[in-house]
């Protein structure tokens, strides 16, 4: 079955592969590189915030004097870094890692499929992602630098910005195309190519999360594409979709007909970007559910309510976008509507989180590295979710809007939230992909340091936000209330640099473990789901014999069984 494939040349096998596992690994490596790059941008910003106006050590001397003045960062460079940090992390880091990498690698295995429904489309999706990424990175080398209008690219600022913004838009169009192709592929694969006996309520929660995510991507991204097309037209063809009449920039009337609406961009953008938040978190929740079920050695508590919550989340996420826009001057009718939907959407998240916590009751908890990350996810995501509460209500938002509180809030959701889930997934599935287990000691060092410093980075932000410090400020100490919390800023910066150092054990572990001679067992975690029914690493076509599914995904510690796990694919436990 796999013999033909092994005859393929290097290019076909590793670069232009149509095998979902190869594509998954390509996505994973690329996304991890982008994540680290995006993180590095932020570390430079942290220097400016902690020590405003002083030269950045080492790197400062290497940068051209359009970006730095005697090694110290200039404000437009800071804005470029801010915009690109957000864009890279969200669109080129987490989404490709959560959906492109884990989705591609794990979903077909977990549903007993030989590959994705459209392998070639899958390859094209990755290629579009790479092209988009290259366009984005190339923009740093433009004369005016990269996009500098924030990852939200609000018009009219973005329309009047330098060429970097055009690259940003073109890059986004590629990234969107990539996501659309991927999402379509996932839906068809999950709906059509499940193994015999794998009914919907026998699907692992991770597959459910990927299915809902794919629908979100499929339906939420096109409006952003429309918005990007409009903004490109504004920038290149001189239209004024987002420019009202009579704009005066730099004391001069700008040359545009006018008649557009700056708020139109925000509506189109947030119509995507709120579901996008769920795109970032749902695959993470899926991984956490897998890891928790496996390491508690018992079925997930409340699997069905969790699935229903997931569906409700996906559905409602299209109706909350304007809670990002309370401060644009919308009327109270509209803000009331969006406050209510925002409160409603918090309920399913509460349900999922509660189910995961209650799953610990009556368990026999194995503290593997993956499990540590999964356990840390729960309170961290909890903080992220809870701090969303004051932001979802218009009146407290009047104080907290666009402050560091917002930054703290969504970073708690995506950094110690999703990224911890990604780490859990890497520690959990690494043996599947490589046939080796990651070193446990290095893993635990990685976990504890990451856990401490993650909180060291994001907890101070909550207090800075409370004090009223606005985000995206090149130098917050200009304001009295910013100067008062400068100590917290310094703490955040040092935590961020330590957090970077804490990733070194992981990187060493990742490459060193791959070369270990000692092979992992076929099913090292004694897991029940289908991916462990394949040889390790799985060959082209995945399964040596067509799998048949006999039971639900998390049949652990079944009374009367001779082992504490009953795999989905084994017909009869003695």
């Amino acid at each position, binding site marked *: 079955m796999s013999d033909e494939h092994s005859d393929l040349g290097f290019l076909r096998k590793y670069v232009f592969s149509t095998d979902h596992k190869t594509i998954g690994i390509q996505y994973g490596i690329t996304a991890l590189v982008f994540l680290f790059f995006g993180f590095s941008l932020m570390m430079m910003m942290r220097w400016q915030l902690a020590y405003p106006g002083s030269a950045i050590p080492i790197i400062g001397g290497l940068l051209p004097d359009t970006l730095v003045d005697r090694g110290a960062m200039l404000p437009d460079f800071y804005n470029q870094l801010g915009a690109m940090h957000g864009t890279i992390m969200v669109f080129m880091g987490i989404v490709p890692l959560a959906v492109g990498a884990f989705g591609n690698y794990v979903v077909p295995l977990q549903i007993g499929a030989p590959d994705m429904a459209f392998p070639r489309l899958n390859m094209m999706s990755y290629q579009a992602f790479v092209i988009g990424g290259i366009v984005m990175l190339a923009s740093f080398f433009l004369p005016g630098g990269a996009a500098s209008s924030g990852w939200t690219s609000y018009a009219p600022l973005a329309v009047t910005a330098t060429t970097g913004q055009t690259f940003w838009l073109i890059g986004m169009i590629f990234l969107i195309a990539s996501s659309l192709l991927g999402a379509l592929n996932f839906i068809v694969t999950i709906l059509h190519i499940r193994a015999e006996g794998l009914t919907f309520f026998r699907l692992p929660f991770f597959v459910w999360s990927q299915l809902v995510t794919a629908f979100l991507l499929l339906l939420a991204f096109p409006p952003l594409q429309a918005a990007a097309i409009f903004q490109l037209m504004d920038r290149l063809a001189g239209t004024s979709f987002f420019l009202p009449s009579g704009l005066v920039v730099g004391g001069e009337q700008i040359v545009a007909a006018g008649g557009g609406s700056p708020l139109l961009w925000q509506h189109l953008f947030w119509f995507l970007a709120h579901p996008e938040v769920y795109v970032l978190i749902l695959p993470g929740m899926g991984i956490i559910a897998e890891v928790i079920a496996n390491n508690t050695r018992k079925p997930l508590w409340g699997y069905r309510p969790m699935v229903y919550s997931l569906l409700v989340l996906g559905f409602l996420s299209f109706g909350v976008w304007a809670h990002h826009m309370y401060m644009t001057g919308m009327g*109270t009718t509209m803000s009331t509507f969006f406050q209510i939907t925002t409160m409603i959407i918090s309920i399913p998240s509460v349900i999922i989180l*509660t189910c995961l916590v209650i799953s610990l009751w*009556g368990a026999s908890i194995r503290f593997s590295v993956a499990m540590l990350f999964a356990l840390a996810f729960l309170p961290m995501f909890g903080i992220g979710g809870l701090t969303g509460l004051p932001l979802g209500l218009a009146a407290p938002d009047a104080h907290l809007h*666009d402050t560091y509180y917002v930054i703290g809030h969504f970073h708690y959701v995506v950094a110690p939230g999703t990224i911890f889930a990604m780490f859990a997934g890497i520690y959990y599935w690494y043996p599947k992909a490589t046939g080796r287990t990651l070193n446990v000691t290095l893993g635990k060092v990685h976990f504890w340091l990451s856990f401490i410093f993650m909180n060291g980075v994001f907890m101070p932000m909550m*207090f800075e936000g409370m004090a009223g410090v606005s985000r995206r400020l090149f130098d917050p100490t200009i304001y009295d209330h910013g100067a008062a919390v400068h100590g917290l800023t310094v703490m955040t910066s040092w935590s961020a640099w330590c957090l970077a150092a804490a990733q070194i054990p992981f990187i060493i572990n990742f490459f060193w473990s791959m070369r270990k001679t000692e092979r992992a067992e076929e099913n090292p975690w004694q897991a029940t789901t289908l991916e462990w029914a394949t040889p390790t690493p799985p060959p082209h076509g995945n399964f040596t014999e067509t799998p048949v599914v006999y039971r639900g995904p998390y049949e652990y510690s079944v009374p009367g069984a001779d082992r504490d796990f009953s795999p989905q694919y084994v017909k009869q436990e003695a």
Partner: protein
Amino acid sequence: MNEPEYGWWLPPNVSVQGDDIDTMINVIHWFMLALFVGWGAFMVFCLVRFRERPGHVAVYKPIKAGFSKWLEVGVAVAEAVILAFFAMPVWAKIKNDFPTQDNPVVIRVVAEQFKWLFHYPGQDGKFGRTGVEFYADDNPAGLDFDDEDGFDDITVRGLHFPVGRPVIARLTAKDVIHSFKMPVMRITQDLIPGMEIPIWFEAKSTGKFQVGCAQLCGLGHYEMKADLIIESPEDYQRWLDEEHAALGLDDY
């Protein structure tokens, strides 16, 4: 005027609307803390009680956790209460209840890259005619200098208003979206070019603070701040008189 003290929690509040907002923020945070501690305690208990150890096995049968349902219902009810009894009335008051009596101070706020401009109607109480066609580097308020109503208008780059008197501010932006933020007044409001958005506020004590921009507006965004001076009515009147005297209508 005493120096305001800033710390790690909410900045001092000098606005009459701010108390409601502060109460809400504090109530919500107590609620969050209670939930988090409850959740956390349960979780830590589970981690210790149900850790893997020889002789301990997991229970297949799910527990009947009726309390989770109650917890979820409780959260929903709490959110509904916060929404219906705090969030919506407070917000409606801030957004809709514009002061009609009490002789409000009316000002025009013009945002441009990267400074604020405050436009007062002057002694005649009437704003001069303004228009986008008049904006120039030496006419940041866009005043039509042929209109006599505008002769005594005051255009300054620091915000002054008296304590105990409502202020109606009409916000507009010239170039890109800015956001008018006064942390001590608990006010944030975006300024959208092409629109004029009215807001109102009232201070309950005097002091010298800062106005900032809370929406990324370009490379000088961080520098976009202005003085915020809340004075006694007498000091305010004195300031107005000084500004009027300094107008130098006969210059040039």
